[in-house]
């Protein structure tokens, strides 16, 4: 009631003050500046001309003028009616407000840890529809690995390395204050040629992002608790923003870019399909005879029978044009190379088409935003596309009774269609797996790919589907409907007290349909799998904040909070066999349907936690800051006795240039930071009790040995192969972070250096068990690993001329060493993978090394060569054969600005990190590329002769080792079990160092005078290019391989290429209008 009367009392003495705001340097009007009357709720903002007017109650009213990037000014009104103000640019510039954990806004200067914030201009309009990939190279400490050039391919992101040996290592995503699920559900049936499935951060449109803040360390993220143990990415969308600068703002972004394959192998054009220089139709290899005109010791060949006539696979009734008049004798076709065209012609020019509209309106009491966006990406592979359509609406209001509310609601619809583009395990009906080594003499473009009589696959090799046929007949589709939003209610009951509650929800359904088309060779009957995933998250955070200036010099901000969270997944997979009518992709169109068993038969998951936390900040004279945090989680995923766990830490910062009143002509700003924080991490659900699985597939693996149940109608039950652990304890990550921020020469050069040492202990990890224990996997709770690293952020302005020309450099450097310190009594923890290829943790060595088969060596390290074959002898052991962790990552952005023109270019360099390359394996062992073109020689591999049964060198006369003296053909050198790629695991591992010209953009802001007679407030036109050049110097030269084609997507097994879609290059044009 009181509040209703107060404005009435005030009415008596009210009058209007007006004026204009300009910036003091350039004397340009400052629109959108906030003006408030101190100690009241009265406020306004300046219009486009910088003009304002405000009602004041008396002459003692103090007006506060504040704008981002300028020093705040306070003016007492006195008797004046017109008050013009010049605002001074804030020379510190660092004094920006950042959103930290739990939505707490803090002055960046006060932070005792490193955060990086990117705004829309760094992310949107870069021809990159994936918000994660748009981050690449821009933030020190962040490692982003794409999985090739599929439209909507998964992206793996880790911050400061992998902390957990086996748990999730992806950072927590928080959108508008609510956790945002970034899962990437693998296919239920990986072995049928896994298609590319995106991770769900893709549902965020970069055009809709206002800011993206990366909280890298434990100190920054501790308040989010377990989920942010691997860092957090805080996104504020335009719908969730709290302030609108002026009355009405309409922004429209549009971008169009074309997409082409960035690099393809250089195929050899001298030898065609065949074996041992002999033409053989239907084989994979290009080890056949030389083409006519090729200088060779071996007889060349002019023509071959049409390959599609081989073995009467397609009779003249199917393809009469392939037979002579008698209908029996195949026609001859030229024997010539199509290698240079086959892969190239298969890819198309894709595109990305983005449109985003946002409208916001508001005043001091509240504002309202609506947005609409649509992004379509047609991939370079036919039939591969993803579209994302989003609608959002948000608003906030300051109520008169000290309450305020805000809310945001987003709906996103993402539809992806992908062919069987990348095999999850290197086998199966993957399009790329066949395409990339089509024999050079096979005219993939020109020959028929579909049987005209029945629509079945047409290809010369039995058991293989023509890639052109596959992409049309065997698509995978995913349709995601996602809803997320939040409601915030807050109140300021006392001047120093704020209470705020945020309730958030985030849910999606992903309806997937995987088709293996009818009439393929791999699945002649065809089949359809429906996979429906529902994921929901509810989150509530209550914050009570007390802010008090304790004395003139000491300020205190204390927060206590409570957080409750529930996540659930419900999934149902049904497999329908035998497609009845081609092209009708419904389960009802199959003759048998059965449920598919997911790993450990787990369709439904639910987990919850609740937590209490506190955050206490103290500042002294605005140059020394101390921050203490503590949080106690109670998680449903741990046994009752261990489910409650407390953690926290302290961090501090000192702006020593202020503290010691140092001269600022050289060192303009200097700050030191230090923090020591512990974060706990929960488990995934249901790991505490070993279960029994109904109707499993029993027998030898997933191949033809596996027998499904019910068997002749009899159901079965088997104990799970996963041995649970009833005494799980939470994981802990303890991080020491030290850093400094320095600005030199009036902010012309700035440097931000961070050192961290992060120790992860008591790891919850599913490892491969010795099968003789009765289990293939078991959950362990031990181990210690460390991540130690340095992050350097650099920005410099080497040139700044009076005519407005500036040159800015920003650089981000990351170096992380991830070492397994202790895995208890064990020496190795193999995990993931299949057969003899996978990942392994070894004590004292780097995290997650590639594990594979090796050749036998003698005590001096020489390869042992089998005298019977001239090829190396397998050792029978699998060991670590490569370290996929990069040595360092460097991204450098150069930006040139002149008047309305901005040219910006990002180069990045990822040094080191190994990759097991199935591409190299296949293309070299099949003789496809120019790497193996010089082949009319006999090669003698390195090593000494050895005994296959003792794995010891064979000793010759005088007891000496015999150097390998057995010559083998070039094909044997590379083919199965040889010295080159194609042999044991170890020879297929390459150093994945890569240099890349990742991003370039040229922007032009149209001069205001041109727009004077138009409705537009501003128009920005930009051209952008992505991935214009790359070089991976340590891969076989003619593969032109891009290591960004990682096939494992998001997860802890990294460093594998199973022939994914090549990366793409984009060139685009973007337009932004605002009204």
């Amino acid at each position: 009631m009181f509040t209703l009367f107060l404005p009435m009392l005030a009415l008596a003495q009210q009058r209007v003050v007006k004026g204009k705001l300009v910036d003091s340097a350039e004397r340009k009007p400052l629109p959108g500046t906030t003006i408030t009357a101190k100690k009241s709720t009265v406020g306004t903002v300046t219009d486009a001309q910088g003009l304002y007017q405000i009602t004041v109650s008396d002459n003692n009213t103090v007006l506060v003028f504040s704008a981002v990037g300028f020093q705040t000014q306070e003016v007492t009104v006195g008797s004046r009616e017109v008050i013009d103000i010049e605002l001074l640019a804030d020379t510190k510039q660092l004094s920006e407000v950042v959103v930290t954990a739990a939505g707490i806004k803090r002055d960046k200067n006060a932070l005792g840890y490193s955060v990086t914030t990117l705004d829309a201009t760094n992310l949107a309009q870069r021809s990159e529809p994936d918000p994660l990939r748009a981050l690449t190279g821009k933030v020190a400490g962040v490692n982003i690995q794409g999985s090739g050039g599929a439209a909507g391919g998964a992206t793996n992101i880790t911050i400061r390395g992998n902390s957990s040996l086996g748990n999730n290592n992806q950072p927590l995503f928080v959108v508008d204050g609510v956790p945002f699920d970034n899962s990437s559900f693998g296919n239920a049936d990986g072995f049928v040629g896994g298609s590319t499935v995106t991770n769900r951060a893709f549902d965020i449109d970069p055009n809709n992002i206002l800011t993206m803040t990366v909280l890298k360390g434990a100190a920054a993220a501790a308040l989010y608790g377990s989920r942010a143990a691997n860092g957090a990415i805080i996104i504020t969308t335009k719908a969730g923003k709290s302030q609108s600068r002026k009355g009405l703002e309409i922004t429209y972004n549009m971008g169009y870019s074309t997409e082409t394959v960035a690099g393809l192998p250089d195929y050899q054009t001298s030898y065609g399909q065949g074996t041992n220089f002999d033409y053989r139709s239907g084989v994979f290899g290009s080890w056949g005879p030389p083409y006519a005109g090729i200088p060779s010791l071996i007889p060349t060949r002019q023509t071959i029978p049409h390959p599609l006539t081989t073995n009467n696979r397609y009779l003249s009734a199917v393809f009469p044009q392939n037979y002579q008049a008698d209908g029996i004798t195949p026609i001859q076709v030229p024997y010539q190379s199509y290698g240079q065209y086959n892969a190239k012609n298969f890819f198309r020019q894709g595109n990305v088409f983005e449109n985003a509209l946002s409208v916001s309106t508001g005043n001091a009491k509240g504002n309202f935003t609506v947005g609409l966006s649509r992004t379509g990406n047609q991939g370079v592979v036919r039939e591969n596309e993803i579209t994302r359509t989003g609608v959002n609406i948000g608003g906030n209001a300051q109520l008169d009774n000290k309450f305020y509310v805000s809310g945001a609601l987003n709906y996103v619809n993402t539809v992806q269609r992908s062919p069987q583009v990348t095999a999850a395990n290197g086998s199966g009906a993957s399009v790329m797996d066949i395409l990339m080594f089509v024999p050079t003499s096979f005219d993939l473009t020109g020959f028929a790919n579909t049987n005209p009589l029945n629509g079945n696959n047409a290809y010369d090799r039995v058991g293989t589907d023509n890639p052109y046929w596959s992409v049309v007949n065997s698509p995978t589709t995913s349709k995601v409907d996602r809803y997320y939003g939040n409601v915030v209610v807050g109140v300021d009951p006392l001047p120093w007290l704020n209470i705020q509650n945020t309730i958030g929800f985030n849910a999606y359904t992903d309806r997937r349909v995987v088709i293996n088309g009818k009439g393929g060779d791999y699945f002649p009957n065809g089949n359809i799998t429906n996979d429906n995933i529902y994921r929901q998250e509810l989150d509530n955070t209550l914050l009570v904040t007390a802010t008090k200036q304790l004395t003139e010099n000491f300020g205190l901000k204390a927060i206590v909070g409570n957080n409750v969270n529930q996540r659930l997944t419900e999934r149902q997979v049904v497999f329908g066999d035998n497609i009845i009518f081609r092209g009708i992709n419904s389960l009802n169109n199959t003759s048998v349907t059965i449920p598919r068993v997911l790993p450990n038969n787990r369709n439904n998951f639910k987990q919850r936690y609740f937590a209490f936390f506190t955050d206490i900040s103290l500042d002294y004279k605005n140059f020394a800051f101390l921050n203490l945090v503590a949080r106690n989680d109670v998680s449903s995923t741990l046994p009752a006795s261990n489910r409650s766990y407390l953690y926290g830490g302290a961090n501090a910062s000192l702006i020593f240039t202020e503290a010691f009143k140092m001269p600022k002509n050289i060192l303009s700003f200097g700050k030191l930071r230090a923090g020591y924080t512990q974060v706990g991490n929960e488990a995934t659900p249901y790991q505490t009790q070993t279960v029994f699985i109904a109707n499993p597939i029993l027998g030898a693996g997933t191949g033809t040995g596996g027998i499904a149940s019910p068997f002749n109608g009899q159901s079965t039950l088997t104990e799970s192969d996963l041995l649970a652990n009833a005494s799980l304890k939470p994981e802990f990550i303890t991080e020491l972070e030290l850093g400094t921020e320095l600005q030199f020469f009036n902010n012309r050069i700035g440097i931000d250096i961070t050192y961290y040492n992060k120790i992860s202990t008591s790891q919850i990890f599913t490892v491969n068990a010795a099968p003789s224990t009765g289990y293939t996997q078991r959950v362990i709770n031990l181990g210690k690993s460390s991540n130690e690293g340095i992050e350097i952020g650099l920005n410099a302005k080497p040139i700044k001329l009076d005519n407005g020309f500036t040159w800015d450099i920003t650089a981000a450097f990351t170096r992380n060493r991830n070492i397994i310190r202790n895995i208890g009594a064990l020496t190795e923890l193999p995990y993931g993978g299949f057969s003899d290829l996978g990942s392994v943790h070894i004590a004292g060595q780097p995290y997650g090394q590639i594990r594979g088969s090796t050749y036998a060596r003698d005590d001096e390290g020489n390869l042992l060569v089998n005298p019977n074959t001239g090829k190396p002898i397998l050792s029978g052991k699998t060991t670590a054969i490569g370290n996929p962790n990069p040595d360092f990552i460097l991204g450098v952005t150069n930006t040139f600005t002149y008047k309305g023109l901005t040219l910006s270019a990002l180069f990045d360099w990822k040094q080191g990190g190994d990759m097991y390359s199935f591409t190299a394996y296949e293309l070299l062992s099949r003789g496809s590329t120019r790497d193996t073109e010089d082949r009319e020689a006999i090669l003698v591999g390195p090593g000494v002769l050895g005994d296959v049964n003792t794995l010891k060198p064979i000793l010759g006369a005088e007891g000496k080792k015999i150097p390998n003296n057995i010559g083998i053909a070039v094909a044997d050198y590379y083919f199965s079990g040889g010295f080159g790629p194609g042999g044991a695991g170890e020879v297929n591992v390459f150093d994945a160092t890569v240099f890349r010209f990742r991003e370039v953009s040229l922007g032009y802001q149209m001069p205001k005078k041109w727009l004077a007679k138009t409705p537009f407030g501003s128009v920005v036109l930009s051209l952008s290019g992505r991935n214009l050049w790359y070089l991976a110097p340590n891969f076989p030269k003619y593969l032109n391989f891009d290591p960004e084609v990682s096939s494992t997507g998001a997860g802890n097994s990294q460093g594998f290429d199973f022939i994914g879609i090549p990366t793409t290059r984009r060139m685009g044009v973007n337009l932004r209008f605002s009204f």
Partner: protein
Amino acid sequence: MLCLLLVAGSCNEFVNINNDPNNPTTPVLELLLPATQVSMAGSMRDLNQGTSIVMQHMFTIAASRNFQDGTDYQSSWNSLYTQGLNDIETIIREGTRLNRWDYVSIAKLEKAYLYSLMVDMWGDIPYRDSSKGSSTEDPAFESGAVIYDKLFILIDEALADANKGAFAIQPAAADIIYRGDRAAWIRMGNSLKLKLFNQIRLVQPDKARVGIAALLTANAPLITTNAQDFAFRFGTTETPANRHPWHRSEYQPTKVYYMSQNFMERLFAADDPRIRYFFYRQTSNFTVGFTPTGNGYFGRYTGDATAAPNDQALRATVGVYPAGGLYDAGPINNLTAANNVFITNSGATATPKVVTNTDGSGSGVLPFMTNAMVRFTLAEAALTLGTAGDPRQLFQEGITASLSSINTIATSGGNSAPALATATSTSFVANRTAQYDAANADGKLNAVMTQKYIALFGNGMEAYNDYRRTGFPLLPAPIAPLNTFPLRLSYSVTELSTNSNVSGKADKLQTAQQITPVFWDK
């Protein structure tokens, strides 16, 4: 928020949701038992493949060149231990607790059968410490001889358990193999003892002789009819996958195997009518450079190192026995006077075709231990140990049992091949008996083992055991071997890399497998 408003007890309830809602946590005997039998058959796929190849029943390139590595048998090893044996231990533990001796007895017999076979394949393996995941992370490897000794005791325990109470498995279908028939399981147990005694006859001849004599004197019931065969009969459905693994892999455009040219030529030359049941020709007269047969029996000679050309539609493939494929009723081009008595072309009017997954039923069989095997084992024991029984008669009974079990499979469960006429069987057995009679003592053993070898098509593991024990049948040397004939199979690379008892010496252990005989092999 909710929790704040409620009492502490409710907070606990709020997070007390970690019981897996998807899966049961307690065992159910009548669902575990069929799982052990399904997984037993399924787990043998890779063992059966590898041993069938080295024994020249089938062909793949690397294995026929005597090459093996840690991935070849890892699926079999891993699933035997983690599925079948693990569930068997659960049945024994739960069944004992509940006094369900019928389940306990069957589980112990399955356990004895599986472990004896695993010793035969790999030699030294984990036994005492295995299937104890929660207490023993690294099971020790024990010597095969020690395990065999324990298995004899285990079989006797099982036979005792079988008579402890009612044999009342409900539903009977939960025992896929014997439908809860106590007598059948007792016959299986005794036959297994017979097999194991015979297996150790080279190293423990007295124990073998005494053991077999004891079985025979006591008139212990053995498997004596085909209906009592200890065998796993596959189903007909493609989804869920119930078919014989060879049908699943070969009745496809892409094939895993060639048929063994050596084996096909052996049957062809010996005028053995089983050739039409074992193999199906996709073309009637294919000839290729390295297999100049010209009658469509197009396979590969063992040890052929040539890369596979595009011949999947041309190869001869598996027939109705044991895979549940097609019966070959097509005319054979080049039958001679010497071999068209039993492999006759009369009535053979069908045209060969390229097989697809809709051909045949897939309702094949994996014979673990059959009447025919028991007859041949008794014949071998009689010949070598002088145990009771007429080896000549047992030899005849063995062949007859083999022919009639082929007839059974070929004409039932969805298969509809013509059965071999009784008169043909009788005269074929008489023909082989004449060869037996003409042979000397060593030749008689050769004749027995050769007939057993042919009858064992579909179970390469027993053929591999027999060959290592007796040296019969005589097998041609591989064309381009990479190694010597493997005396044991390679260990699972998973086990070698995860079990700390062996991980440090994995390479030595693995390579020694090739040249180290199993304890009963001298």
